[in-house]
């Protein structure tokens, strides 16, 4: 296999096939795990006869391989099944919650990268001087906080004591049942501040630490020294020579941020009563809503895999050296 356009296309195709296989494997794993788990999806106080009837209705009396086959068949037709708890199509339940998770994750990601990159670059320019030490210790502290605890802390201070932000939910239930006016858009942002700040701050602390290290690693490279030696202004050295190359490893981090946001989303959405997919998944697990659990796992793993793929593609575009290396690695594996 050689580099160039043809190699790139076949690499992409291979990666796409692998990604689909990975998602398929995840769905299979989750399906099996939830179906071999003890217990049935019935509330505790329900009459056993009713429970048996429900079990038959959901097809849970069939053998697990049969159920799995039927599920795959439905999935192939784009049918995710029906929620056990309220009978809605799973697709509707997920479609309703995804926008909320996207808003939360998007705002958190924005804060994460803007603040994190800014701090990291700022620190790298002042290594071991006072600002670097102060920011370094602060980011180490915030990075080590449990997200749910930080959430409680922010709620306590800004929600309860100061009363600046609402303590939960995604909108004002009386004035803004749906987002249909400018006031309600502002209201949504208002509700978004605390949950997004929680996720974003912890992420930004990690990003700043990462970016500082990446900048310093590049700082000792010959081309940076050369740029300085030939009299390029310091600002330009940092932005054009150091930052550009340090951003390469940052792209990979960008791809890895998705699982972090998903994990955080479950906790943060639960604490702030944010009606997103994380909370949906958590409630589905607690109520043993099998189709809903499997579907949320499907969406979550798709996001993770897509994030990785996107990062790899971006790195490939930004760094031509990697294309050669990637194809060389494929040769080693297939040899």
């Amino acid at each position, binding site marked *: 296999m050689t580099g160039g356009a043809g190699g790139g296309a076949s690499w992409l195709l291979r990666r796409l096939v*692998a990604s689909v*296989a*990975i*998602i398929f*494997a*995840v769905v299979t*794993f*989750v399906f099996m*795990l*939830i179906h071999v*788990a*003890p*217990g049935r999806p019935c509330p505790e106080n329900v009459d056993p006869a009713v429970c048996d009837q429900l079990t038959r209705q959901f097809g849970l009396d069939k053998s697990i391989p049969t159920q799995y086959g039927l599920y795959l068949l439905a999935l192939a037709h784009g049918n995710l099944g029906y929620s056990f708890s309220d009978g809605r199509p799973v697709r509707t339940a997920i479609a309703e919650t995804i926008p909320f998770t996207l808003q939360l994750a998007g705002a958190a990601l924005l804060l994460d990268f803007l603040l994190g990159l800014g701090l990291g670059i700022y620190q790298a320019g002042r*290594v*071991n001087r006072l600002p670097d030490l102060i920011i370094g*210790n602060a980011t*180490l*502290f915030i*990075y*080590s*906080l*449990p*997200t*749910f*605890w930080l959430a*409680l*802390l922010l*709620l*306590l201070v800004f929600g*309860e004591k100061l009363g600046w932000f609402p303590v939960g939910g995604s909108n004002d239930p009386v004035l803004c049942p749906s987002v249909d006016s400018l006031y309600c858009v502002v209201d949504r942002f208002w509700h978004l501040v605390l949950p997004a700040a929680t996720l974003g701050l912890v992420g930004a602390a990690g990003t700043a630490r990462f970016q500082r*290290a990446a900048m*310093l*690693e590049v*700082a*000792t490279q010959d081309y940076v020294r050369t740029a300085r030696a030939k009299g390029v202004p310091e600002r330009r050295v940092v932005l054009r020579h150091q930052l550009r190359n340090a951003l390469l490893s940052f792209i990979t981090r960008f791809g890895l941020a998705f*699982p972090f946001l*998903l*994990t955080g989303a*479950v*906790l943060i959405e*639960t604490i702030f009563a944010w009606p997103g997919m994380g909370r949906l*998944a*958590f409630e589905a*697990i*607690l109520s*043993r809503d099998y189709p809903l*659990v499997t579907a*949320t*796992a499907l969406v*979550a*793993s798709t996001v*993770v*895999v897509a994030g*990785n793929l996107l990062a790899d593609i971006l790195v490939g575009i930004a760094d031509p050296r990697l294309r050669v290396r990637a194809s060389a690695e494929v040769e*080693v*594996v297939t040899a």
Partner: protein
Amino acid sequence: MTLGSWLAVFVALVLAAELVRALRHRAMRQERWRRFFRHRTTSWGLGILAFLAIVALAAPLIAPFDPNKQLDIVRLKNHAPSWTFLLGTDVLSRDVWSRTVYGARVSLGIGALGALVAVSLGTFVGAIAGYYQRWIDAVLMRGVDVGLALPRIFILLMAVALWDGLPFTALVIVIGLTSWFGTSRLVRAEVLSLRQRDFVVAARALGAGSGRVIFRHVLPNAAAPIIVSAALGVGNVLLLEAALSFLGIGIKPPDPTWGNMIADNASSIYSAPWSTLFPGLAISLVVMSLNAVADGVRDALDPHEDAA
């Protein structure tokens, strides 16, 4: 707090400080370890970890009250911190300091053991894949790809919520089994580059078996990244356990863990913030120390980063 508990805390502090001092003293002989102690935060991190480990081991001496005893539900509920109740009492009138001290046992225990399972498994799989290559490598690494794409928090929630009330050991194993994928990739990459090196080739030429080559020659030289990922792993597992307990599905009450202490008292955070704040501080203190130590190890092993 009784006089005995104060004394025990003091002894624990002195022990931890002495331990770090002794380590530092010995470290000065070797260039690599000197670099490890170069940052003041690394020594502090090590000292805090040593102190908390001693506290966890000597919990009965350091905790003045029974951690699960409701002292006086009428008069001592949500009592503010005082000399008797150093960190106050919680919503069920239990002493927060005693619960935090005993909670260190469960939280640190799960963190350390879970990370041990994860890092051992990750090292083993990574070493096998990197050393034997070919189809073994391909199969194992595709498995790891799937593992990394698993929404870990979902899997853990499912395991813990559906098998109601998993015991401590099972929880450790489940967390360990879902946390090794990253380490195995890291170790594989190290092994891939190490196995080409002259000393490994020489060992094999002298007739050493694969097991001996892997464990005596390859892995000791990959120790650094493994130690770093172990230190970070303990912190991650600790945070994960806290999150699970916070969602109400980790270790069963009344046994205290830092996570379920936060969960139990989150509802009274406005009237009695101490019972939520201190366990959270304990968690971040441990994770911060572990991160500082990991930074130190990384620094000690990375010779070209002399600026930082």
